[in-house]
Structures are given as C-alpha cells and as structure tokens.
C-alpha cells in the first residue's frame, strides 16, 4: 500500500468538513462588515463594525446574554445534581431496573419540538394542563407558566430533556467503580455519606466535567424549545442569543446584524470548546 492511499481515503471526509466550516465562517465575517438587509437590496457597501455596534447596543442584547447564561447555568445545575442522585439511586440491582433504565432514558430521544409542545400544552396550560390540576388539587391558584415564568418554563423543559443524558453518563461512569474498594470501605465502617464523599463523588468528577462541557455546547444554542413554546417572549423575556440572531436574520431580514451576532455566538462556544477538546485530547493519548 503506497503512502498516498491513506490520505485519499481521508480526503472526502476532511475536505467536506473543511468546506462546511470555512465557507460559512468566511461568509459570516464578510456579511458582518457590510450593509446587508434582505428587504433593502439596493443598500450595500462596507460599513466596518457598525453591525457589531448595532447588535451589541440593541437593548435586547443584554437580556439575551443574561437569559443564555441563566438557561445554561440552571439546566446544567439541575441535570448534574439530579442526574448524580438518580444514577446513585439505581446503581445497585433492584426489581425492574432494566425497565426503569429504559423509561428514564426515553425523554432524550423525543424530538425537541414534541418535547416543547407537550409541556406547553398538556403540562403547563393554565386551565387544562396537568400542573394546573395538581395546583388546584392542593388548593393553590394555577400558574400561567409560559406568560408569567417564561424563562423558567423553558429551563424546566430543557432540563427534562437533558436529564436522561446526564443520568446515562453518570450511570455508565458508576459501572466502572472499584467494587472491592467500596466493599473494603464498608468493612472499615464507612457509612454511605462517607462513601459518597470520598469514593463516589471523586470517581464521578471526570464525567461531571464532560457533562458540563457537552451541555454547554448544546445549550448555548437552544432554539427549537424556545421557537415552539414562547417564541422568545413575552417581549424578550425568554430570548437567548441564538434566538436573537434568528430574529435578526429571518424576522428582521437583517443578515448583516445577524452575522455579527453569529460571530459573537461562535466566540462564546469556542471558549467552552477549548476546555472540552483539551480533555478529550488527554484521553486520546492513553
């Protein structure tokens, strides 16, 4: 086998991915420094950093950044803590463990639009929704979740979808726990809390980092869940950066400003990516 063949075999995948990355990036950079509104095709020309200025000084921008961070932070916090708790709970065999596993995993395979509508209508509707019924049952006044707590509703919806992913990873990680070590610690009289503190949590450290970073990358650009439930509203109450860019591009037809925003989102995601890549890279050397 000559030396060219391995490269030739790699070429289609590498080249297509390279185009997929570089073409949009160059175009985005170009669009971000010109005047480019789909509704005003006659106005063109180089305008420097005006689009960036417009995007960043837009009053919606600050809200969108805060919403993005709140969404990201809350979902990660909820899924990591609940995920570890559930993984520990079902770590040891019990009757029906396999069924429990399958039921717990299922929400992750539900497409985001179904997930969002299911919660919007059947769970959170203030009159007929299940949550409203539960509230009434306990004598409380039902809440209009999507109007009164739009961002928190989105957080609940997204957390429900990502909890199975976190749980699954923690479950997988727990399977590689050193059972003899656990047994030995029990013999030495360690109680469950001590085992948790000195054995389980340190063992899970690495997978927590992985979950946090994977979720960071996916959750920075939550889109479908917002699109189908609140539409970013009321006002900008549940608009994140990804949705703001979408609004600029396809609702305001301002491709220039949207591109400036997109570059901002790329920078945000890359900060998270650098850490993840380092970690995976270390793993590759082993």
């Amino acid at each position, binding site marked *: *086998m000559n030396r060219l*063949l*391995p490269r030739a075999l*790699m070429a289609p*995948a590498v080249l*297509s*991915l390279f185009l*997929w990355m570089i*073409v949009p*990036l160059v*175009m*985005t950079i170009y669009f971000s420094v010109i005047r480019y509104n789909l509704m005003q095709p006659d106005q063109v020309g180089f305008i420097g950093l005006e689009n960036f200025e417009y995007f960043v000084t837009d009053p919606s921008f600050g809200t969108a950044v805060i919403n993005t961070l709140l969404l990201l932070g809350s979902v990660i916090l909820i899924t990591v803590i609940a995920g570890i708790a559930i993984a520990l709970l079902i770590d*040891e065999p*019990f009757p*029906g463990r396999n069924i*429990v596993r399958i*039921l*717990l*995993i*299922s*929400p*992750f*395979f*539900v*497409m*985001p*639009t*179904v997930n969002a*509508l*299911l*919660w*919007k*209508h*059947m769970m959170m509707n203030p009159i007929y929704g*299940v949550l409203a*019924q539960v509230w009434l049952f306990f004598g409380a006044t039902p809440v209009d979740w999507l109007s009164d707590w739009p961002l928190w509703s989105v957080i609940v919806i997204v957390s429900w979808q990502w909890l199975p*992913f976190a749980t699954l990873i923690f479950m*997988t*990680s727990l399977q590689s726990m050193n059972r003899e070590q656990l047994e030995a610690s029990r013999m030495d009289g360690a109680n469950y809390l001590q085992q948790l503190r000195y054995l389980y949590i340190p063992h899970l450290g690495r997978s927590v980092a*992985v979950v946090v970073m*994977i979720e960071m990358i996916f959750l920075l*650009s939550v*889109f479908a869940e917002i699109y*189908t439930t609140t539409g970013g509203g009321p006002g900008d109450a549940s608009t994140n950066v*990804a949705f703001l*860019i*979408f609004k600029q*591009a396809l609702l305001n037809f301002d491709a220039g400003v*949207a*591109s400036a925003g*997109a570059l901002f*989102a790329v920078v945000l*995601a890359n900060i998270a*990516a650098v850490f*993840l890549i380092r*970690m*995976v*890279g270390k*793993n*590759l050397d082993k």
Partner: protein
Amino acid sequence: MTQIQKNLAIQTLRTAFAWLVTLLLFFPLGWLILTAFKTELQAISVPPLLIFTPTLENFSIVQDRSDYLLYAQNSLITSVASTLLGLALAFPAAYSMAFFRSKHTKDILMWMLSTKMMPAVGALVPIYVLAQTSGLLDSRTGLVIVFTLSNLPIMVWMLYSHFKDIPNEILEASRMDGATLWQEFRHVLLPLTMGGLASTGLLCLVLSWNEAFWSLNLSAAKSGTLATLIASYSSPEGLFWAKLSAASFMAIGPIVVFGWFSQKQLVQGLTFGAVK
C-alpha cells in the same frame, strides 16, 4: 430488627423511591401517549381522565389534515440518506486514521471535533443564502447535505474508536495474501466492525430524525420533516391536544425504540469517547 431485616427494609424503600422518581420523570411522555388515544373532549377534561375507551380516530385525522405520511417520508428519507452518506464518508476516513496513524492523525481528529462545537446558529445566514442561491432551500437534498455534515465528526470519531480495537496484524495478513483494498474492506474489516457500524448508524439516525434547527429554518411544505410538522401545531388557535399527541406519538415512536438500542453508543458518541 435484625441486620438482614434492616437491609431488606432499606432495599425496599430504595426500590420504591427509584420507581417513584422514574414514573414522575416519565409521566409527561406517558401522558402524551395516553392522550393520543383520547377524544378531544376527553383530552381536556377536568379532572384529567385516566380511564377511558381508547380511540384511534386521531391518527386518521392527523393524516387527512396535515398529510402526516409526506412528512414521515421526508424524515425517513433524509435521516436514512444522511446516515448512509455519512457512513460512506466516515468509514474510509476512520480506517485510514486507525490503521495508518501519522503524526497528524490526532490533530485531524481534534479539528473535526472542533467543527461540531460551532453553534449552528452561527452558520444560519450563510447556509440559508447558499441553499437559496443553489435552489436547495426546502429540498430533501439540502437537508441531507446539512445533516450529513453536522453528524460527520461524530461518525468518524465513533468508527475510529471501534477500529482502534482491531489488531493491525489481521489486516496486514489479508494484504499479504494479496487481498485488494476492496476485499480487505468487504471480507475482513466489515465483518469485524459490523457492531460498531450499526451503532454509529443508529445514533446518527436518531440525531437526524430529531434534528430541529436546520429543518425548521431550511424546509417548509415540500421537504418538511416531522419535527417541522409538530412545530406547526404550536399555534394557539383551538385545542387539538389529542391530535397533537397522536401526531407526536407517530413522530417519536420509532425513534425512541431505536434510541433504546443505541443508548450505550450515545454515551460514547456524544462524549467523543471521553466516557466509556
């Protein structure tokens, strides 16, 4: 209480609690499935109905009203085509990386991973413009290309990690015996990696089927996938919960079952092998 009794009590409590948590978390999905078999009146009844005579009428209404089959066909074609195309691109690439390691292999793998980190919304405007100028807007071809490229890094990574476990000697032996590259693929590598190939394909099928960002932005009436069909039910006029549930049930049923089979690969694929 003896120690054994105490352990049994803890065990029972634990089991009960595990089931309680599971049923609570699964409840929304279970509720969706139940609602799919109710009439519209039963779906919004107060208090909610748990026991009722199931009906299948919603399923036929969904088909009549919104042409479910067209969207299902689009979903099926785009996800299967993008999975096959992705495998065709990723298989040789992963082969080359796993069995002909050079000092650049690691860099290339890392770079592929980094393309997956680009948020899709960052490429929205250029991809939209490109799709429009090339006539691929609202076409299945356009969606297949986009799905393939966004899944390609995951596929290369997963195949690579499967290939890595195969000893190079087996392939070398077949080469010594005069096997061509194609014969080597077909008769040696393929049988050895069938499991890895299947699980990679399965995971990508699930990811493409559920993909919502690109299908919402690049497709409409002609090439819309099930994800877009369901999104069209978000309008507030009228409460068609039973029909929405029936449509959702049909949209997620097959893929959730696929998902159960690919859950192990999901961990490896989505964490790029960092958790095994």
